[in-house]
């Protein structure tokens, strides 16, 4: 079964600084990879996804992520953080199972705090 690890539980970053969130997955092949953001008291919003092709994917809100097969990683980055980026970030993987349904497996999340 697939699994996802987000090694950092909390990250504090100054506004305007760069941000990188780590994500490692465990699966025999390349799964589908996702980053979701959850603002306080809100639902989950998809930031970006990787299915195949170019290993550097661009998402919404200025985020990007890079898939590295050799490291089984899918790290999320943003060059300059805004105060509104303070939220919980979840990495997730999915393995297509056709009629058996698609199941997202989430990492434990990383809480990002932004200092003024």
């Amino acid at each position, binding site marked *: 079964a697939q699994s996802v690890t987000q090694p950092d539980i909390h990250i504090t970053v100054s506004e305007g600084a760069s941000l990188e969130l780590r994500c490692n997955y465990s699966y025999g092949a390349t799964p*589908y990879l996702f980053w*979701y953001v*959850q603002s306080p008291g*809100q*639902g*989950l*919003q*998809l930031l970006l*996804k990787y*299915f195949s092709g170019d290993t550097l994917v661009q998402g919404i809100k200025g985020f990007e992520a890079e898939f590295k097969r050799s490291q089984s990683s899918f790290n999320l980055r943003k060059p300059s953080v805004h105060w509104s980026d303070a939220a*919980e970030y*979840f990495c997730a993987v*999915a393995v*297509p199972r*056709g*009629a*058996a*349904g*698609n*199941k*997202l*497996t*989430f990492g*434990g*999340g990383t*809480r990002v705090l932004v200092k003024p």
Partner: protein
Amino acid sequence: DTAVSQTPKYLVTQMGNDKSIKCEQNLGHDTMYWYKQDSKKFLKIMFSYNNKELIINETVPNRFSPKSPDKAHLNLHINSLELGDSAVYFCASSPIGGSSYNEQFFGPGTRLTVL
């Protein structure tokens, strides 16, 4: 024009009670899901329905029973509520696409507190 909606947003109840959470999607999707987010923010799938048929049923106590009256609705009924059921429950939906993966769209969540 809400895509995936859940009611109620907050639910506070006593141990032993039976409660339901409703989910509706207006995206025309065939598949709907329930996820549970515990107090440590850990998210895990509970159920998935495709065209009213149960297709994913993770290890969930049988006090939890999903019900899908039509493909736009997937309700979650919980019997004999326990303290450990306190969590945020998210509904999601996605189209079905054979062997390819289809993005899941999440509702805003229902925060259940069992006292």
